[in-house]
């Protein structure tokens, strides 16, 4: 099943998609270009909120809410704490990015990457429509995690525990150098 351009704009859901995707992309762009470090992190909030909204559109509410809770709730706070503790340069004069000699190759690399992958995606899927779907049942997802995927789940728990202990060990103020 394929969709033509005019059919694309006739579908109401696609206008909703554009209303989410364009601010997400703009915020993503400003995250990596903004000259104000706090604003860059707050643009990341908008961008991650946009991805959460896309997950709701795709019928994955559990993943969407996890993004809101873990990313927007916890990770952003960590970033803001990191900015405050390291006394990052604030204000319009702050230099947060490299100069043109680094920016030009970086822009070239990411543009080429975007172009190649977009071409490959269009070549592989062209304008294939997503078949109608029901939102994923969170109960079903929970049963799958604790049944079929329980060992990866436990491994992730250990990784989080190791990260927690490692974070405490690294950031302790009164760390004595070993004898």
């Amino acid at each position: 099943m394929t969709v033509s351009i005019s059919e694309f704009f006739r579908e109401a859901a696609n206008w909703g998609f554009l209303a989410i995707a364009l601010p997400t992309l703009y915020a993503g762009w400003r995250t990596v270009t903004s000259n104000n470090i706090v604003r860059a992190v707050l643009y990341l909030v908008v961008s991650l909120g946009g991805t959460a909204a896309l997950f709701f559109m795709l019928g994955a509410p559990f993943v969407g809410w996890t993004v809101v809770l873990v990313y927007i709730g916890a990770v952003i706070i960590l970033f803001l704490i990191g900015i405050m503790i390291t006394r990052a340069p604030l204000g319009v004069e702050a230099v947060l990015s490299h100069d043109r000699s680094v920016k030009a190759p970086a822009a070239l690399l990411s543009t080429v990457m975007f172009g190649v992958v977009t071409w490959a995606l269009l070549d592989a899927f062209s304008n294939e429509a997503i078949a109608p779907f029901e939102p994923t049942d969170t109960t079903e997802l929970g049963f799958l995690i604790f049944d079929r995927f329980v060992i990866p789940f436990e491994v992730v728990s250990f990784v989080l525990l190791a990260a927690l202990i490692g974070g405490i060990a690294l950031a302790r103020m009164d760390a004595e150098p070993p004898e």
Partner: protein
Amino acid sequence: MTIVQFLIVGIALFSFGLYGVITRKNAVLVLVSVELMLAAVNINMVTFDVYLQDALHQGQIFSLFIIALAAAEVGIGIAIVLMIYRNRQSADVDELNLMKG
């Protein structure tokens, strides 16, 4: 809805993140760009999960694991940046040239 429209948003965010990782000077902002790339990967995962109508929902479960690992990565990353700042009084990745010959 087509599948490509979601995947293109994903690759665009990934390219922005790649650009940010290379151009940013401040170590915290490099981590921010990495988060942007991981969010882009999650969009891909969930899109393919819905497109393939996977009975095991492996795309969504894998994206949940990615979110958990990204949180761990940020925790450790910020702790390392903190240590570097404490030792060098700067969180600028350019000034970390101790291992340069």
